[in-house]
């Protein structure tokens, strides 16, 4: 199991931080690093116990630990890591609930672009308020509470959806 962990770790690290890796794709450049933290006492890396550290530097910026990134940069780094794991072991579906809430337009585009790469292997179910993400979808479901307190599914086309997720005229199912 130690060797197995090591193999997976190396694969994910390459998927994430490599030259063609997810981090550079999502940030349009820059650099990232994932490494196991050496043990305080021995200074050695222990494949079975050591924790994982992530260092990221968006294009043109100095390397920083995750906490020093902005809200949007953190989200993009997390998505890059998720997609790197996905690449090493795809799951039949991926369920994302308002992952794009902190992103600006340019980053939403790149987020959709990354999902695009996996459509031949998996499918995505995405809850969002962002119109740009909705435009990327093949199909939209609206959830409303016409009857207070009771959720109902309605069919929705893109032109019925307001700027921030409101469903204007409901198309009955």
């Amino acid at each position, binding site marked *: 199991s130690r060797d197995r962990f090591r193999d997976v770790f190396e694969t*994910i690290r390459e998927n994430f931080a490599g030259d063609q890796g997810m981090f550079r794709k999502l940030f349009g450049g820059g650099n990232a690093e994932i490494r196991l933290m050496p043990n305080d006492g021995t200074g050695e890396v222990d494949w079975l116990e050591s924790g994982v550290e992530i260092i990221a530097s968006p294009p043109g910026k100095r390397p920083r630990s995750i906490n020093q990134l902005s809200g949007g940069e953190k989200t993009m780094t997390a998505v890059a890591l998720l997609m790197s794991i996905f690449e090493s072991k795809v799951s039949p579906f991926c369920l994302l609930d*308002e992952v794009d809430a902190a992103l600006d337009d340019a980053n939403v585009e790149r987020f959709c672009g990354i999902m695009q790469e996996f459509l031949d292997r998996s499918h995505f179910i995405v*809850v969002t308020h962002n119109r740009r993400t909705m435009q990327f979808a093949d199909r939209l479901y609206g959830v409303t509470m016409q009857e207070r307190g009771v959720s109902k599914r309605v069919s929705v086309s893109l032109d019925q959806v307001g700027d921030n997720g409101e469903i204007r005229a409901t198309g009955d199912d």
Partner: protein
Amino acid sequence: MRLAKVTLCGFKSFADRTEFTFDDAVTCVVGPNGCGKSNIVDAIKWVLGERSAKSLRSKEMADVIFAGSAGRAPSGMSSVTLTFENPLLEKPIEPTAEDEAISDGSDDDGGDSLIQRSGLRRRPLPIDTEIVDVERRLYRDGGSQYLINNKKARLRDIRELFLDTGVGADAYSIIEQGKVDAMLLSSPVERRTVFEEAA
């Protein structure tokens, strides 16, 4: 193997039977605040065996049963079903050592195990049916059940069914609202578990 459909009935705010089919590559769920979008994510985690009420944003598990509204009485039961397509593989898969170990163990309790782990695997899920329905139910009186293709099962069977597929209640492929950064911000040791899960 694809997740083709989810059916909710009496789960949280979904008082009536509601189906969401996922025939497309990307399906978006939209709607105003508080209407029930994240309840669908909770429903999928719940049927895959989630045991912590807190991680379903509830105080206790009974809170997942429709609690009534201004115009409706509470439901007596909550049920969620996931429907997976399980087509024949082009080339059958040899059983791994793990498969053999599990299939030896599960015959002990005499259950006519639905899941066939030993022998060649002809489909992505170790069940020889074209469609696999996984259901979880909870009754007001506290009784609860898991069902695979309408036959009674246990949580262990659900876990065994999805072993090594990347599908699970706390799999990395389900990101809850507000938790996208959680993978990064956890401590280095917690971060490690995500890598272990993928191993």
